[in-house]
């Protein structure tokens, strides 16, 4: 139905802003996904201490297009999604996605769809720093 908010953000993400963006008087359900930085990874041999996300210059436009595509598959759902760039500590929010609808099934489905599409197609890269001082690029080793 509609994309209310998309952003590639160097600033910390705010869940309430996303929830508010997909809510109106007809909303009965908001499904949210919050991707957070964890201290381990299948690509890393050791403890992950922090991450650095970088984005292609076209990432803001691509994110808006991806959200539009997902919105087209989920009528009557409002969407909001943002991805962080820059330095993130363990526990920081990397991605926030919200889907608002009159009913929960549509909200859950759209939120899942949105997150999977963003993970697969948004041109962003993740550099993870390990406790021993080394680093790895997720997916590029």
């Amino acid at each position, binding site marked *: 139905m509609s994309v209310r908010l998309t952003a590639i953000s160097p600033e910390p993400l705010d869940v309430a802003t996303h929830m508010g963006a997909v809510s109106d008087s007809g909303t009965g359900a908001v499904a949210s996904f919050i*991707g957070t930085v964890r201290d381990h990874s299948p690509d890393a041999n050791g403890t992950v201490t922090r991450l650095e*996300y970088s984005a292609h210059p*076209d990432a803001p436009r691509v994110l808006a297009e991806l959200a539009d595509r997902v919105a087209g598959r989920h009528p009557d759902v409002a969407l909001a999604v943002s*991805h962080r760039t820059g330095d993130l500590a363990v526990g920081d929010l990397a991605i926030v996605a919200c889907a608002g609808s009159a009913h929960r099934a549509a909200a859950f489905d759209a939120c899942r769809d949105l997150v999977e599409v963003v993970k697969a197609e*948004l041109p962003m890269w993740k550099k993870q720093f390990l406790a021993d001082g080394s680093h790895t690029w997720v*997916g*590029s080793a």
Partner: protein
Amino acid sequence: MTEVRYFAAAAEAAGRSGESLAAGTVGELRELMVSRHGEALERVLSRCSLLVDGVASPDDVSLDDDTVVDVLPPFAGG
């Protein structure tokens, strides 16, 4: 000349964020990048997509003057 833009692991392996190279096709450009930057870039490059003026392009695509080629490692958002 083709303007090459390296991103993320590809930029690290090439030791730069971009350069101008002369190549007739995407395949020739790949070979040239490897000959200039060696094994480290070759490893990453085997996993990269090359976008010619924004379009993912296989090795047989020709390159005109003033083309921009982006070297994109696998995406890892989320």
